[in-house]
């Protein structure tokens, strides 16, 4: 079986010291992305547990798997959850969801929870898309842009190069920073042409880390261009798999002249959407109970 270089490893986590049996409101958010599916459980609006799993060929299956993994070992059952919101590309296919909400709103709300009310700009890069979001102090979206048409500036674009160089995704960032002198970025935006360019560079004798640096630099520029349309305002946060790629993050910070908020311990940057969804679930649940 071919090694899949660009797939982040699957795992789950329970926040230590929390007891769900004492919670008033238990909600879940399920974010089904094109590459990974995330399930987040929150108790009384605080993070309790989450899972990150690969998305398979069936969205409902992926949602189920992510949810099962998230509750694994907690003693919780699906029935214990009061309200579930589905989000992400496969949000309409979360069979046990009460409601589907677009990922834009969920990511902004999630970032607001993770980093607090100072977040104003958010960049989320998933497997097959890149989102740029402006939000207010309550995590409400004021502007939004998503590219899911062009592979440049998406996780998939990174995979093509990681595959070419046979470098696992976790190593891409650190390896790209091993260069003595920062090379010119790859000139093609189009990943197909960028790959040919990379092949040419390797033939010219460029070491892998230099080719990687050139590509990460180009990707950082792609992202910066996207952000330009909505204008970056501090504080700036990054979510999605790309947040774990220090090679792209550092170069992006350099280009836009703003440092991203540091990653928070215990919060995988890929679960921001799920967190937001679970928080909306709580709000909708309480709203329904009030009007009942």
């Amino acid at each position, binding site marked *: 079986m071919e090694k899949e270089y660009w797939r982040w490893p699957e795992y789950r986590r329970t926040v230590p010291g929390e007891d769900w049996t004492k919670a008033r409101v238990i909600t879940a958010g399920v974010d089904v992305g094109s590459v990974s599916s995330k399930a987040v459980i929150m108790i009384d609006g605080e993070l309790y547990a989450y899972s990150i799993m690969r998305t398979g060929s069936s969205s409902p299956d992926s949602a189920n798997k992510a949810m099962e993994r998230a509750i694994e070992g907690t003693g919780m059952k699906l029935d214990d959850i009061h309200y579930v919101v589905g989000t992400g590309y496969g949000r309409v296919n979360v069979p046990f969801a009460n409601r589907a*909400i*677009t990922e834009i*709103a969920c990511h902004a709300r999630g970032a607001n929870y993770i980093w607090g009310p100072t977040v104003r700009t958010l960049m989320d890069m998933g497997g097959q898309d890149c989102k740029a979001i402006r939000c207010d102090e309550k995590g*409400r*979206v*004021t*502007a*939004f*842009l998503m*590219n*899911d*048409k*062009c592979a*440049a500036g998406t996780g998939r674009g990174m995979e093509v190069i990681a595959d070419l160089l046979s470098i696992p995704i976790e190593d891409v960032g650190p390896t790209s920073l091993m260069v003595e002198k920062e090379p010119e970025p790859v000139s*093609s*935006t*189009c990943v197909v*042409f960028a790959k040919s360019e990379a092949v040419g560079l390797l033939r010219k004798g460029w070491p892998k880390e230099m080719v990687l640096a050139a590509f990460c630099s180009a990707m950082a520029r*792609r992202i910066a*261009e*996207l952000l330009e*349309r*909505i204008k970056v305002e501090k504080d700036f946060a990054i979510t999605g798999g790309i947040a774990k790629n220090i090679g792209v993050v550092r170069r992006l910070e350099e280009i836009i002249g703003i440092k991203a908020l540091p990653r928070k311990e215990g919060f995988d940057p890929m679960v921001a959407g799920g967190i937001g969804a679970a928080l*909306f679930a709580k*709000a*909708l649940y309480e*709203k329904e109970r009030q009007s009942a």
Partner: protein
Amino acid sequence: MIIHYGYKDGSGEYFISIDTDECDGCGKCVEACPQGVLETRTMMIDLEDKLVATVTEEHRKKIKYSCAPCKPEGRPPCVLACERRAIIHTWKLVGK
């Protein structure tokens, strides 16, 4: 909230930007578009449902192609039709 539908790729940038605060869902832009790029749809905004104009799922990734015939670098029909100035069109080929 301003939603930018579209993309930037190697060949240029192509966006239809809709201000959902200004948009009242009147549908005039939808009628004005000769290619069926736009539609009105109920969206959840701040936990409330609102009827606003959006770019159809089918055309979101094809704005370069779908909108090309209207020569949107000028003022395309959708922009001219909107009385609330809730819609802006960007269509730029790179270089030559």
